[in-house]
């Protein structure tokens, strides 16, 4: 029998904790409930939930700050559930790295649908790149990226400096060559949400990365823009002895 998904509910209102917990359990989830930021931290020390439902108005800490801290340390999906239902609260919540935002009062079935949707979305993404390729060396279009030393070498063997964000982004592209990645996916995969969770951040990082790779921004040949979809690394990539991502995407810029 499959292990049920573990959802952590963080809310200072016992009636909400009770309601959401019951709803989750009735629908095949395992629910843990805590009332504040301290409880959240204590639970995270001993277990890793699959998803967190987070209230914003907690007695000891601001839920938005908690959300931002969570996002900087982990990829656990977060749904904010708050009676602070102003548009600006929603926007800030999402910018702080929440995966979804539902205002109170809420319909239980809507919350359930969102939990399932966020989990589905999280699962459609590959596993943690940090662990997948920690010892890898990538070769692409004459370039070499050595992950353990974080060194990038040009086709003329010149060492090229990469910022942390650029390195993370390049790693994501190298893990998914010839696959269109949305801005959200790039943010998630590169843990970029901890930096600045705005779409434009990714655009700027891609632009900088192109410059590092000597890619013509007007007609890039390595990282191509796919209108209304995101970006794709359109190049054959070798990792260790493996070759993958044959350039068969057929995608233009």
């Amino acid at each position, binding site marked *: 029998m499959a292990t049920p998904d573990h959802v952590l509910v963080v809310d200072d*209102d016992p*009636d*909400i904790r009770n309601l959401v917990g019951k709803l989750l359990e009735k629908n095949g989830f395992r629910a843990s409930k805590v009332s504040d930021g301290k409880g959240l931290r204590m639970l995270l020390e001993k277990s890793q939930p699959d998803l967190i439902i987070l209230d914003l108005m907690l007695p000891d800490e601001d839920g938005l700050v908690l959300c931002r801290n969570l996002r900087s340390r982990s990829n656990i999906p977060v749904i904010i559930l708050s009676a602070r239902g102003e548009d600006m609260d929603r926007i800030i919540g999402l910018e702080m790295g929440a995966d979804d935002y539902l205002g*109170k*009062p809420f*319909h239980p079935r809507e919350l359930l649908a969102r939990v399932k949707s966020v989990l589905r979305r999280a699962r459609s993404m590959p596993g943690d790149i940090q662990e997948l390729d920690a010892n890898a060396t990538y070769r692409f279009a004459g370039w070499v990226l050595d992950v353990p030393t974080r060194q990038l070498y040009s086709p003329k063997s010149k060492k090229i400096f990469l910022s942390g964000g650029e390195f993370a982004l390049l790693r994501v592209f190298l893990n998914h060559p010839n696959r269109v990645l949305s801005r959200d996916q790039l943010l998630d995969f590169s843990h970029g949400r901890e930096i600045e969770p705005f779409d434009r951040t990714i655009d700027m990082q891609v632009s900088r990365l192109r410059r590092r790779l000597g890619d013509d921004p007007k007609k890039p040949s390595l990282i191509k823009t796919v209108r209304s979809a995101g970006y794709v690394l359109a190049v054959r990539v070798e990792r260790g002895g493996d070759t993958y991502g044959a350039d068969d995407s057929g995608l233009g810029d």
Partner: protein
Amino acid sequence: MGVQSDKITVHIDEDLAEIVPGYLFNRRKDVDQQLPQALASGDFQTLRILGHRMKGSGAGYGFEGVSEIGRAIEEAAKLENRDGITQGIADLANYLDHLDVIYD
């Protein structure tokens, strides 16, 4: 909301049958103890929190009326409007008195 003499029938998802009585018991405690005590001591912060919680939880359990009353109490507490809070307490008592819950 005003005094209502008719039955207020609310249909609730039977999945929630185990926890709804506890929820209504807590609202009754709000009417009988928490809200009047906070009002008597001029503790508008507590009144605001109680209203805010009612607003947030009521409709989730299926009780739209509790959310509406909670919203009114929260707003009245923000304005330190004693009459508004007194009215909110009366509305909640009336709502609970006339509530008829059907699980289906």
